[in-house]
């Protein structure tokens, strides 16, 4: 149990998908103009990363490893991720068309989010059990959502601040993102300790 908790803290904070591994930067800069849209995107990505990691684990163990098809890993995982996004979209549409109209805009963006593929490939390197890999993927995506919401909050404040004209918009956004990344580096002290 303790190992699981430490692994999850490590995946969410110490080796954060966005700020330590630099994955998913498109959505990090593109969808973080408001907290609510960032939270919506974060939850959708959390769902897709977790569900696709479950499917990826099964594909890796029962298909790629079993038949020596490891060289097809990246292509197969991309297919699994696209299927997971399609599954999510169909499910949301079936569960509630109104929800689909509200949340459907985030789903196509997730297909091209490299964080989803990055987490899936990290799981293969980790050689974990099914529950271990699922928890790792869940924690990684929670870390992604956390950073998205924090950054969206900072950008909402920035919108009200007096920023020099040359730095307004994306430049000050990148500076704030780098400061946030440095702040998250402090979590690496947990692993060192």
């Amino acid at each position, binding site marked *: 149990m303790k190992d699981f908790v430490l692994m999850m803290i490590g995946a969410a904070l110490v080796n954060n998908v966005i700020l330590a591994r630099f994955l998913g930067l498109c959505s990090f800069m593109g969808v973080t103009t408001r907290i609510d849209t960032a939270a919506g995107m974060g939850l959708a990505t959390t769902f897709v990363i977790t569900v696709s990691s479950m499917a990826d684990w099964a594909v890796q163990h029962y298909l790629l490893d079993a038949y020596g098809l490891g060289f097809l890993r990246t292509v197969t995982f991309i297919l699994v991720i696209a299927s997971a996004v399609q599954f999510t979209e169909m499910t949301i549409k079936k569960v509630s068309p109104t929800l689909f109209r509200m*949340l459907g805009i985030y789903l196509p963006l997730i297909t091209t989010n490299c964080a989803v593929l990055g987490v899936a490939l990290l799981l293969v390197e980790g050689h974990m059990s099914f*529950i271990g890999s*699922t928890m790792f993927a869940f924690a990684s995506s929670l870390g992604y959502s956390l950073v998205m919401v924090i950054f969206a909050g900072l950008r909402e404040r920035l919108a009200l601040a007096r920023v020099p004209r040359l730095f307004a918009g994306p430049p000050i956004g990148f500076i704030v993102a780098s400061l946030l990344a440095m702040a998250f580096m402090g979590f690496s002290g947990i692993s060192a300790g």
Partner: protein
Amino acid sequence: MNPLATSDFHTVEGIARVVCLEGSVAWLEPEQTGGCGSCAASSGCGAKGIGTVASRMEIRRFPLANVDGLRVGERIVVGVCDRALIHAALTAYALPLATALGAGGLAEWAMGSDLATMAATAAGLSAGILAARIGAGRLAARGDLAPHFLRRARPGETCGTGEQ
């Protein structure tokens, strides 16, 4: 008068175009096609192309009571309460995930086998999706998820320029 326009609610705004009128109901097609808000802006990123397929837009059409004399082709600003968006996302995504992970964790603790854990996780996910369906039905019945008319869009206004 629109209650959202005068109350303290924070709304998530979006631009929609009136595509047809049926009696007192106007059917709208949302203009924002990506989560990043590039919408009709001339310099959108690659995400712009993903959601602009006609069939995809048609799926996202929604009705609105036409009490403001809307006409076909008009661009209007609609809004939903920001809390409704968070509630919707929690219902659709967090609930199924929680049940799936809970069921998987229990199976791992009880049996310790990967196959049993996978089966339990899949069962938990299915149960969570059913629960989400019930929750979404309740939210929709309360009218929390329905968009409201806020105002007519200014010429050249996009979802990225609306707040300026």
